[in-house]
């Protein structure tokens, strides 16, 4: 499969701290790639660099060969690389449906003035967004919460809403930041289904995650980061057998990597 995203020589320094050091890997079209690593390994920084919420000290990220590092986040989103957030970050006072509708921003044909004056294009957009939002709601099983204000949602549904917001932008690559964190067994199982479903829609999924069994279960390939360095890359089986990875997770070597 062709590569959609190339991460090459990505380095990020915060003062004296090197959060990411010369990290390179490629993401293939429509795969599920996970980035794992112990706490503080630099995974979240790596994610922010890829979604361009941070600019790298050196190195770059390319989407279909075009450099996206250094562009504003909304421009990167426009090109199709969209992130969800670690915390349950949604628009809290809006309803579930409104959250998803507003997230269709990138698909607008009409201008802001168009929406203000409610032109034909704007009305068409609105109708299109409403249909698409309903489709995403059904896809994620949020039907019962459709008109619920987001701040009232339980944890698992908030996470699903976060993914829904990401999907509404019609991304090529969706970056999921710890989608399974704090979930019980059932919730994780449902969330795994959702992530597979997202991939089945043609989206390439890149995820950062702590839940090893879930990662091993769902990933096509895994990149392991420790102390800001990439220490391994490969299929779940390869990663489980990699001595360096086992070393990195020393102390809980068996259970935490799901052997």
């Amino acid at each position: 499969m062709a590569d959609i995203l190339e991460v090459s020589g990505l380095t990020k320094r915060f003062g004296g701290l090197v959060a990411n050091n010369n990290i390179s890997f490629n993401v293939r079209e429509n795969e599920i790639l996970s980035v794992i690593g112990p706490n503080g390994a630099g995974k979240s920084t790596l994610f922010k660099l890829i979604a361009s919420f941070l600019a790298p000290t050196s190195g770059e990220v390319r989407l279909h060969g075009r450099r996206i590092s250094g562009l504003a986040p909304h421009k990167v989103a426009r090109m199709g690389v969209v992130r969800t957030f670690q915390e349950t970050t949604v628009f809290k006072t809006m309803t579930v449906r409104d959250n998803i509708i507003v997230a269709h921003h990138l698909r607008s044909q009409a201008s802001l003035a168009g929406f203000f004056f409610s032109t034909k294009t704007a009305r068409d957009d609105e109708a299109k967004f409403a249909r698409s939002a309903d489709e995403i709601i059904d896809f994620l099983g949020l039907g019962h919460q459709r008109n619920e204000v987001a701040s009232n949602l339980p944890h698992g549904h908030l996470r699903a809403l976060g993914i829904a917001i990401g999907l509404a932008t019609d991304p090529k690559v969706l970056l999921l930041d710890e989608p399974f964190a704090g979930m019980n067994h059932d919730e994780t199982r449902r969330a795994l289904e959702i992530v597979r479903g997202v991939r089945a829609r043609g989206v390439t999924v890149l995820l950062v995650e702590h839940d090893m069994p879930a990662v091993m279960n769902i990933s096509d390939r895994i990149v392991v980061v420790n102390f800001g360095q990439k220490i391994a890359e490969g299929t779940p089986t390869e990663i489980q057998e990699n001595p360096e990875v086992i070393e990195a997770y020393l102390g809980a070597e068996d259970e935490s990597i799901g052997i």
Partner: protein
Amino acid sequence: MKRTFKAASVAAFLALLLVGVPSFISATGRSDLYYTLTSVALLSIVSAGVWITFYIGRINIGQGAFALLGGYASAILVTKYGVSFWLTLPFAGILCAFVSVLIGLPILRLRGVYFAMVTLTLTEVGRLLALALPITNGARGIVSIPLPGAITLFGVTLVPDFATLANPRLAFYLTAVVLMAVCFACLYRLVHSRVGRICQSLQQNEELASSIGVDIANMRILAYALSSFLGGIGGAMFAAISQSIYPSTFTIADSVNFMLNCFLGGLGHVLGPMLGTFVLYFGWDLLFQTGSFQLLIFSSILIALMLVLPNGLLSIRLRGQSQG
């Protein structure tokens, strides 16, 4: 049904303001009310601007600077260059919007109390500039500004020359009410269109907003420019009515009041700034008889109101609605 009810209440409200109030005043002879009500209408336009910045999640205590700028721009053009007031009115708004873009580019990156502090100093900067610049005539201000002239289009007089009117106060009052109605109609449309949702997305989480592709820097500038536009329009009208403008016409206290109007009326509702301005202005006047205790009583009531109704006076109505 709901729509027709809304349209009917808007029509009734406008009829009350445009017909009811003038007939009440002419019946009772309390023509001083014209000035008060005109002020309320204009200040509510200025406050509506502050409300817009609240709507994108910024506390704006600098609106006085733009009201001052708008007032001076109009006054100078009318007195020194003989430009028709009606042309200076939109010009004042556009000038303020333009200046706010220049100022906003650096300061809109700030959030919360930092943005609030910078805007607070803006008003003081505005006052000092008005004192220092030669064109503003220093502390003496600009006085004896002529009344607005006529607007004629193809020989038809649309608006008569205010100086020839028997009752220019009524004319100002009607102008202010019409301006206010237009302003709040636009604001209502803005908030209830997709633009409003995008503003809200900014207010709630700028990072998430940018991750769904919203150009947050652009939206902030746009909102701030709109806000300052309204400040300029309000200020220019104000100068025209009082026929004078001084560096002290809009001070920090006014900037704070514009913000308070929004708080008091309710940040969650478009009509918040209008109601807030009305209540605050009349509340202050009603307490006039209490003399030296005026400020004490006034501020105590305000504090109490904010404790009891943190979401503003209009939240009473909203709460009733969601229960009923």
